[in-house]
């Protein structure tokens, strides 16, 4: 069945959805994977417009993990808009990858599964990716 550009499939029942809004692709990928391992459904967004596109599409979001360095310098306005227009969404504003990882760990503590590893491992993995370390076989 072809996808639709405007509609979105409803999320599976009983699974909370976390929208990770993070401009750094390495942090976003690692945080998203971490939260998926904890049992959440995760949507990844790299900009404020993308966050708004997702919300306005009707996609159900339970938690918004929002990095303060999101593009346009608009994270505070975005957080305010979400709290006003989507009051059922829990919004967590974070500053820096350590705080993002810590908050993801807290989310996982309340999630369907115990978190699989310490948030500090999340930070280390993001840093390794940023350094562009290649595996020994390359």
């Amino acid at each position: 069945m072809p996808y639709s550009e405007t509609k979105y499939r409803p999320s599976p029942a009983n699974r909370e959805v976390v929208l990770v809004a993070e401009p750094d692709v390495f942090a976003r990928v690692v945080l998203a994977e971490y939260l998926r391992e904890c049992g959440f459904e995760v949507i990844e967004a790299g900009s404020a417009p993308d966050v708004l596109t997702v919300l306005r599409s009707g996609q159900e979001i339970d938690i918004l993990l929002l990095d303060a360095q999101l593009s346009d310098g608009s994270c505070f306005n975005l957080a305010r808009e979400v709290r006003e227009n989507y009051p059922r969404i829990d919004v967590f504003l974070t500053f820096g990858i350590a705080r993002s990882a810590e908050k993801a760990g807290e989310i996982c503590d309340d999630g369907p599964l115990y978190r699989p590893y310490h948030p500090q491992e999340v930070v280390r993995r993001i840093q390794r990716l940023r350094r562009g370390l290649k595996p020994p076989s390359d």
Partner: protein
Amino acid sequence: MSAMKQSCREPEADLRAPVVLVAEDEILIRITLTQHLRNAGFRIIEASGASEAIGILSSGERVDVLFTDVRMPGDSDGIRLAQWVKQNHPGVRIVFASGEKNIGEIVHGTRLFPKPYDLEEVESYIRELVADLE
């Protein structure tokens, strides 16, 4: 408690599952495709453009297939991305998607899915591409 929590968990992609890097700037399209492919058992990495995709590949993350939109905003589009991948990561299989009818020459040896594409068809093609990995 942990047993009850464990039963809520949907099957996660095997760590040995093929890894597909999806480069697509339109978020709703990217979400729909990546959800479908995750449910199909692939490991998915998402990039909102060519520079993010290059960053992921340069970091050493394992990628088996690159699925990329042709037209994306930023310094590079999907074709330049694919050319870079062919030069620097020749083992990565490449698949294109495009909403345009006439996009000129695409990278040799790759397939193009015109938008809107059928998700099952994309999944089936990617499975063929990675059949030798499984």
